[in-house]
């Protein structure tokens, strides 16, 4: 089991280390050359900055936004979903679910296009909007999955013992952990995706910001002149999300 953990962890470690330590080393790589030219190891980006420097600087914000957005999504929607699933009052369930239905019916791209420009260029706003977009989805998935467990005998027995919302919720959450963790993994990937898509649509982070997701968009015109400027950040993003998902799979597999 141990050995199987390694590929995922390595994939995860590379981007995370680059993101964490990169900013410390980045100042060494700030020469400016010709667009997509230059002398750096990885060449220049669309404004001639050293791609290596940008890569080293650009991890923190990507990882930060994705982690933050995913964390906020789950911090809000997890409890809501569990509440809706375990409550015995229909009114509570409705009070949670119906307002979300409105957000659900709202095309998420539209939310991105309309809400992000309110404070242009703010990573926090992007994270917030990404969280908002994911919120109803997560609530629905977790609630639906938890409903069957919540209606089960074990939960009745917990109630019979006088257990409160917290323990009942914890039990239900634990029973649906695989789905939740899987969803969490894809949400994380989805957050990366949304940051990049926002850049493509011209909202959110400025093309100028060091951010892997944004780099993929900003440098794609130079794909044939300096492939490294697009490919390296793209590979780092892929490594990050594939690594995170493989590792969580493996941890779950080991737990059973």
């Amino acid at each position: 089991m141990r050995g199987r953990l390694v590929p995922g962890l390595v994939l995860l470690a590379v981007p995370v280390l680059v993101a964490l330590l990169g900013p410390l080393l980045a100042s060494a790589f700030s020469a400016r050359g010709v667009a997509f030219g230059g002398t750096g190891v990885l060449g220049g980006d669309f404004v001639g900055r050293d791609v290596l420097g940008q890569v080293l600087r650009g991890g923190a914000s990507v990882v930060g936004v994705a982690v933050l957005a995913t964390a906020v999504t789950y911090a809000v929607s997890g409890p809501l979903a569990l509440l809706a699933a375990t409550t015995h009052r229909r009114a509570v369930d409705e009070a949670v679910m119906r307002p979300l239905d409105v957000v659900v019916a709202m095309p998420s791209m539209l939310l991105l296009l309309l809400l992000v420009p309110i404070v242009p260029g703010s990573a926090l706003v992007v994270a917030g909007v990404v969280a908002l977009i994911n919120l109803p989805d997560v609530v629905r998935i977790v609630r639906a999955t938890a409903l069957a467990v919540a209606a089960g005998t074990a939960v009745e027995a917990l109630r019979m013992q006088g257990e409160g919302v917290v323990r009942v919720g914890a039990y239900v959450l634990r029973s649906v952990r695989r789905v939740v963790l899987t969803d969490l993994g894809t949400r994380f990937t989805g957050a990366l995706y949304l940051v990049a898509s926002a850049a493509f649509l011209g909202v959110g982070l400025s093309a100028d910001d060091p951010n892997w997701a944004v780099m993929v968009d900003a440098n794609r015109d130079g794909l044939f002149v300096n492939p490294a400027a697009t490919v390296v950040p793209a590979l780092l993003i892929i490594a990050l999300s594939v690594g995170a998902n493989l590792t969580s799979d493996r941890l779950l597999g080991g737990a059973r």
Partner: protein
Amino acid sequence: MIAVEGLRIVAGSAVPVDDVSFTVGAGRVLALVGESGSGKTSTALALLGEARPGTVVTGSVVVDGSVGYVPQHPGSVLHPVRRVGSLLRETARHAGVPRAEVRAAVRDALCRAQVADPDELLGRHRHQLSGGQQQRVVIAQALLGGARVIVADEPTTGQDTPTRRRVAEELAALVADGVTLVLCTHDLALVRALADDVVVLRRGVVVEGGPVADVLGTPRHEYTRALVAAEPGVPGVRGVRPSPDVSGGTRCAPKVSGGPPLTAGVPVLTATDVTADHRARGRSRRALHGVSLELEVGARVALVGRSGSGKTTLARVLAGLHAPSSGTVELRGEPLAAHLTRRRRDQVAAVQYVFQDARASFDEHRPVLDQVARTALLLRGHADAGERARACLARVGLGADVVTRLPRSLSGGELARAALARALLAEPEVLVCDEVTAGLDTLTRGGILDLLAGTDAGLLVVTHDPAVVARLAEDVVVLDEGRVLERGPVAQVLADPREELTRALLGSPVPTPTR
């Protein structure tokens, strides 16, 4: 034909099954008997080539032909999403029944499994079946499967007396057709009626084995003798093991101090004109039609009825797990909320319920002891909840080595007892027990009944077992199709049942020998 040689199952430091060997010839019936936790289910699983998680099986097991299995806990093996009918039809088709005859075959199998209204049941999901109905559906599935070897683990625990007898007859008919049967059971009457040979297990070791007549007729081993002696209907003899001490030690349910004086004749729990409905296929089915019930302080009432008559439904209404469509439930004159979550903590503690499916009522991720102890902490605020839980579990016969494990590594009977201990720790005024003794061997059952008899709590005991009624109850209520058919003091009802059904239910627990 089955040949087991040197079967040994190791679970960490424990050895649930050690050096078990036996053979069963084709078309013969072997019964595995023994007290709860003696290794019956473990052995049965080994016959299927399976092992519980965390256990290692060694030794040789040879089984000729396909094996059909009736598990001890039928609820969890039925599909949670698909309807009963679809499952059974698929089984029939798989067994090679021609398309045109599938429906008929399924009907037939359900009838043989004693399902009264097969057509109604076919459209149900598993959670819409009563405990006994689930068991019979699983039996029907085994019948349909057409296996030449059937391993049946406690196939009759959840059934009422007449049904049990007829299920036994069906199994006998199967054997007559040449099917080999391995029966795990605590029901010695069933063993006598059905089995050719018997193997007696104790703590995973074979203590004795041989033809039924020899072993049960003239038991050589002390343990077997005790098992036989503790059989209901043979009064006066107790197990060789000291039965759980009822008078001294830590009492699971001491008198509630500070409450109103407990005088007999004062109603604690009153249910008035309770009707309850279930929904199936978008339609509403009435399970209880205006049932009224009054439980006095310290009273011990047995609730009997055919499988599916609404016993569990009534029990769940009282416990606040099922909202009645009309009618009220009152505790000491104070109306109780229909739903548990809206009852006050002391009310929850006062009315406790032991679930029919003990295994399903535990959180599979936490050790049994931790779960059981929570009751004492939450409902009674005892700081020493862990200690109390340990003591109470010991009194139902569960040692520290057993209860510190996860639920999945406990046997069916062990879990049932743990569930009982969990409810007792709430020191309830009224304890509603749903078939707590159904999965227990004669010896263990005796101890548990003594324990129950010794509590101060008012008891409402749901059971199919006439011996339990006779031994424990003062009053009996007979339920039929959601209506109270008859009620009265046990002695009177037993002596002179007014209704035919009552006679059948409370009649001889021993199935008439069929072979």
